[in-house]
């Protein structure tokens, strides 16, 4: 394989779910998971995680800080289906039921380096006023059948959503062999390596 050049490229993503801005809510926790195409496979790290519950900071920023680390490595043969991170934020409502406070998704940045992303979050809306009332009352808000729905475009037209807040994410992206496979994603100076580099002890 070494002689023939790489047949897959690797994408290492680490970073963290830094904080969130949800002006109306407090005591939130967040789940993340990755959605990727058929040509992608995780090789190391966790694809999904659930954070601790955080309360708002007491300063004027009123930020909800999680600093929840992300560390995952993918391998792929095809940039189609580039990984997206799907976030869902949950928190208690007035009655203490855990309800969803926001869904959001963003693609992992393409170019290597440090990236900060602010993801707008939204929740699905109830289909009627009565539903809204009962769902509020019962603490069973409408939810996506699967949070991964927010990473796909198909079928979204049947839903109505409302914006909720923002989650700030930090990504550090490292790619390997993208150039060799013919995918140029970053500014040229960051893609210095050329020629066959020795295999790093990565799992196949």
């Amino acid at each position, binding site marked *: 394989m070494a002689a*023939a050049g*790489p*047949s*897959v490229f690797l994408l290492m993503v680490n970073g963290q779910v830094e904080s969130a801005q949800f002006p109306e809510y407090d005591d939130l926790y967040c789940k993340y998971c990755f959605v990727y195409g*058929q*040509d992608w496979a995780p090789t190391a790290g966790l694809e999904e995680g659930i954070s601790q519950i955080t309360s708002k900071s007491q300063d004027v920023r009123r930020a909800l800080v999680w600093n929840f680390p992300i560390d995952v490595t993918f391998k792929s043969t095809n940039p189609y289906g580039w990984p997206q991170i799907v976030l869902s934020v949950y928190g208690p409502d007035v009655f203490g039921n855990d309800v969803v406070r926001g869904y959001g998704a963003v693609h992992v940045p393409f170019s290597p380096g440090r990236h900060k992303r602010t993801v707008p979050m939204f929740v699905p809306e109830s289909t009627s006023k009565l539903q809204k009332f*009962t769902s509020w009352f*019962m603490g069973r808000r409408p939810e996506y*059948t699967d949070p991964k729905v927010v990473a796909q475009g198909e*079928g979204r037209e049947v839903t109505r959503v409302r914006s909720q807040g923002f989650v700030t994410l930090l990504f550090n992206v490292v790619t390997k062999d993208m150039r060799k496979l013919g995918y140029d994603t970053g500014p040229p100076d960051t893609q210095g390596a050329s020629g066959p580099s020795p295999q790093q002890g990565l799992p196949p």
Partner: protein
Amino acid sequence: MNPKEEKVKIITEEFIENDKDAGVGRQKKTPKVARQKRKKRLPTTGPEEMVPENLHFNQQGPVPEDSDTRPLSMTSRRGPRSLPPIPSASRTGFAEFSMRERMREKLQAARSKAESTLLQEIPTPRPRRLQSPSEKEMETEFGTEADEEVQRTQKEDDSQSYSRVKFCDSVRKIKPKPVVPPGFPSAEEAYNFFTFNFDPEPEESEEKPKAKNRDGMNQEEEEGEEEEPPVQEHKMDEEELLSAKDDEDFLLGLDHAAEDFVVVRPADYESVHVRLQMEKELLFVPSRLTVPTYKKLPENVQPRFLEDEGLYAGARPEVPRACQNIMENRLLTQEPGRKWFGDDGKILALPNPTKGFPSRPPVLTREQDIKAELETLYKKAVKYVHRSQHMIGSGDPSGNFQLDIDISGLIFTHHPCFSREHVLAAKLAQLYDQYLARHQRNKAKFLTDKLQALRNAVQTELNPAKPHKSLDTTQKAINEYKSEIRQTRKLRDAEQEKDRTLLKTIIKVWKEMKSLREFQRFTNTPLKLVLRKEKVDQKTDEEAYEAEIQAEISELLEELMEEYERKMEGYRASYQQWKAWKKAQRAKKKKKKQAVEEHPDEEMEEPYPGEEPVKPVPPEPTDRALVEQQVRERAAWSRRRPGEPTLVPELSLAGSVTPNEQCPRAEVLRREDVKRRSIYLKVIFNDKEVSRTDSRPLGADFRVHFGQIFNLQIFNWPESLTLQVYETIGHSGTTLLAEVFLPIPETTIVTGRAPIEEVEFSSNQHVTLDHEGVGSGVPFSFEADGSNQLILMTSGKVSNGVAWAIGENGIPLIPPLSQQNIGFRSALKRADAISSIGTSGLTDLKKLAKWAAESKLDPNDPNNAPLMQLISVATSGESYVPDFFRLEQLQQEFNFVSDEELNRSKRFRLLCLRSQEVPEFRNYKQIPAYDREIMEKVFQDYEKRLRDRNVIETKDHIDTHRAIVAKYLQQVRESVINRFLIAKHHFLLSDLIVEEEVPNISSEGSGILGLSLFKLAEQKRPLRPRRKGRKKVTAQNLSDGDIKVLVNIIRAYDIPVRKPTASKFQQPSRSSRTFSEKRAASPTTHSPTHSTDYPLGQVLVRPFVEVSFQRTICHTTTAEGPNPSWNEELELPFRAPNGDYSTTSLQSVRDDVFINIFDEVLNDVLEDDRERGRGIHTHIERHWLGSVKIPFSTIYFQAKIDGTFKIDIPPVLLGYSKERNLIIERSFDSVRSLSEGSYITLFITIEPQLVPGESVREKFDSQEDEKLLQATAKFQTECALKFPHRQCLTTVTDISGKTVFVTRYLKPLNPPRELLDACPNSPQAMEELVARYVSLIPFLPDTVSFAGICDMWSTSDQFLDLLAGDEEEHAVLLCNYFLSLGKKAWLMMGSAIPEGPTAYVLTREQSHYLIWNPCTGHFYGQFDTFCPLKSVGCLIGPDNIWFNIQRYDSPLRINFDVTKPKLWKSFFSRSLPYPGLSSVQPEELIYQRTDKAAAAELQDRIEKILKEKIMDWRPRHLTRWNRYCTSALRHFLPVLERNQGEDIEDDHRAELLKQLGDYRFSGFPLHMPYSELKPLIEAVYSTGVHNIDVPNVEFALAVYIHPYPKNVLSVWIYVASLIRNR
């Protein structure tokens, strides 16, 4: 050429041509020159001192840095160059020296003068700023030049001192630092100047001696020499350039030597004057004065003005005169060729319209050809900043557009109420308008002028002033001109004649009018015509007239002469011919005479070859007098006579109308009538009235003024715009006078720019009036005798303006082009042909070109430019007009590889196939990055499948017919799946969002809001917990191992018990049973004799349950006794095919869950009884007792399966028997014993619960009546409202995807003849046989074949052809058979265990109902507790549907009397009677007799395959086959078939025992309908017969196939294992 050199050249030319400038420069310069002279003298101490050169040299040595010497640089520089380096030259006389000195001065003067000229041009004091890079280069050249000279002196002059070298070096070192401005002498130059001898050597230069001579001749005349020095300069420069290369070499060689020296020098200073002088030398200022025309044209050529010749010459761009002059001067100086000037001596300012190719030179880079230029380059995408503020809502389809229609007024040119005078007035006005129009155009004048120009042109052409043109072309041109003249003259004459006639007519009408007014003694119209006479100068006029006539006459004469000549020519020719003929004739005659003499008998038969040619008549020469007469006559007719005043008619409205009182009664009536009339207009847009004007009274002058503007807000492109003119008379009513069609404006016409146009209209109505009005459409006359009648129709003109409105932001509100299609075409039709050429290819281009050539279009006129362009393109053949139209013509540019290459790429193909969701690739993971990594074999399966689509594979399917059917099914399935792939991608809200349902008061269960609120207060851990529904999981985020099938085996009843092998020859009592007996089967039929065989306490059977699913096997612990209770949960993992857990994929899982019940038999393997005391050696055998098979799809759709199932126990179970007596003795529930067979209670579910795929929500098209469909929808909603869980079926989908009303499927159909013949006298047996036949048709659930799509019903013939179907098809067929047998039968929709929603058949016997399971062929009484049907939703008959509206739906508790409307809601009732729907079933089913030989062959093959399989399954053991047993079994199987597997067990056993003696024997026959081989193998495998690994085991296997008509095959497989008893 070097730019510098060019500049110098320009300067010299300037000097030559423009003395004035030079003079100005000189004036300015003279004082400076004087000063310079003075300065120069100071250090040199003057030439007068006559110091020898050497001394001079020494003196000057230390002062070369003096800045004062710098202005001399040019001269000094030149000096040494022309000087010989020979030292001997230094010995020169004084005369020579002084002359040299003077020479130097002169050069200096000329130079400085040139500089000052430059300075004049450039006002900036710092010349450095203006230096171009080239000039800088020049500087260094100067510098190096100096260097070289120094070098040369060093080489050649041996006597040079060391100090001097040193000095030179130092100079050299400093030199690169200060950049010396051009023309300034460097220090070295100055030094050289002063140190070298200026010894003129005649062979060295050409100029020098010349100058010298001049000097010698007139030393005082400095002024005269001014022209010379610059020339010299220029040449010198050239020389310098040549040597520039060498200089650089020197520089490089010497650089290092100069580093040691530091020279202190004063700051550089350049005086302004010097700088100016230098600039003057370099720059060129063209003069502003007008260039005389002769300079711009070739010699002896008069300027030619195209305009005067009548050709088009475009308007020249506005350029100030001064600029033009400058340009002309420059061009004249720069390029002596006069190509920049036109024929008129003016600079060319316009593009030549006749030029066929663009003037701009092609930009060609050095080595690239055009193709390389055109190559597509990749550019990175640039982010486009969107400017939104200028965006208009162009994409907005509902943007409103506005059409402004301005209706200013209406004039009648004829109206019924016109009086006679009005008629004349209208006529007069019309004529006058015509006159005005003609006058404005003044075509006659234009043509006259043109004629004049042409005549002049002929004159000039004839003039032999242009020798360069060939005579031929001249002649041709003249001829053309002449023909042109002729034509123009004719046209002019016609025009003039028309003018004159018009004038005459006007006068005539006016006279008529006047006479009419006089006659009727009143005036109706204010019209008044005044004829103004314009006096002309009699004499000049006459002269002009005469000249014109003379010219015409001469031309005519010439023309006639030409014609005469031509005719004469023709005459001569024909005359010659005639003569020749005559001669020949005469000769012939002579000959003939001789011939006649010689052969008198021969008659003169020879006829003349043609008619005798007539002797041609010579043409008459033209008579000048005659011609003149003609011309004069014509002139008199068409032209104003000389001296006659020009008549100019003027029409005014100054006349007065006679008031009413003075008019006769008829006229008053007419006027009254006019007053009563009023007019209004309707605006019709796209045939719809959109608005109308106010009604305005008709004025006495028959004009109506509206002055209204209508703003039409429109959405579509207007197709028609019409105004309707309505007239109202008094209060009587309105009549439509006429319709006026307005053209739809071009898109360029917007409000404010639209001209007011007059559109004429006329009507054909007939009006006769009883007053003075002439009416309309009726004849009337102006004459008293009524002759010369006129018929006039109402007509008029509407003046209007139509334009597009402009929006608030200045954007015209015009609909987008896409909407214009229709309008555009119609607009095109109206447009003139020429302008629309090329837009749609209306005209044949070749014809057009021909026409253009014939009509001699002026190619200069920009109006014709597009046409000429088109013609040039079309006729040159350069442009290839394709006769096809291509969409996306730019696509090719964007393809990065060719299509073939793209298709060859395996990776691309793989990606495509995956995205198309081709089954083989649907979930292909990680498509390799390179082509080379993709194996060919990846595609092999897919390609094979594609290839085999039409090839029928008989390998897997032993039976060819079934192979065809399987193929067909596969194809139907594929097409249906493809059809619904899109539908699958339609999402519902519930697919995406989980939302609690709104608590509904009417909904069942705890739906009420209050109740659910109450639930909130519920205890968290109630004492009596209730089951809660599990949360459903969508299949999206599942992977292998996530899904498990849970099988909870609770208990079983009535397991067969072992028969002690000891007992032999039991002869059971056999009895033939009837229906009634079966229904109320009593245990008495079975004799309790067996019980004696079993000693109490002996283990009868040790059953355990083994569940196998997807080849995973789990089993329970072993229980004891025939009614074991296990209560165990088994967990089986589930793997979806290809790891695809999507709903579609799960639905198509065809795996079954096999639940097998085995008996665990412990065999003592100890051979020796002595061992018994020390250990137990037993061998465990498992004997298959029966199985239950549940398809996974059923579990998937049902979510859970809970109930008691009948165990499928083979009819013969060797070594086992049902232990019924015990049950009775233990006083079991008698109901249970009513049925025979064994039962098992199971609970099966999937963990986690999966959401079953929903059927397609698409509405299918239907051929049913719309009313019927509505009724079905209504019926279903009503039913669903009452009993939402009961199945109500009204319409189904047929195999072609159409919705069909369900009753159409039911129709009596004939069962196979053979079945009817089999038992003619027993209807019950026949029915059973029919049911069996139906059940033998293989079962294939629709959900499997059409995953997740829908339930499809095939008709019975299709079903029999396919030989596969699910419950509905079986039920329909069975029901149809029963109907044909004359029974009352219904299709019963309900839910059963384990099928779920299913279809059964209900028949009515004399007193009771029977429920038939069509898939198994079993029937149950209505009150049979073991009937698998658990609920009844509706009944379907051939002509109606009844929905169960009883409280209960269990068949045990409902009444099947459909005539009771309280219990059954019927679809067709009195309000909606049955319309008599035709059936979709065929008239009759045709059965082919099955080929028995084929069946036998199949039988053998199956047997062989099964035997091989069993051997395969026992890889570690020897498999022996007992042939005796096999043959015994083989004989037994047909008996089983005949008896349908009932009650033959004991016979059989006896026979076997008889044959095989002491074998321990276990075996059973399996019975199945035949569809494929795989299920058979699967079934055999699941019995586990092969698992016996006792060393001395033997096997027996027999297969029997009983063929039924229509290829329905009943397969029997008898498997047995034998162990020899010791």
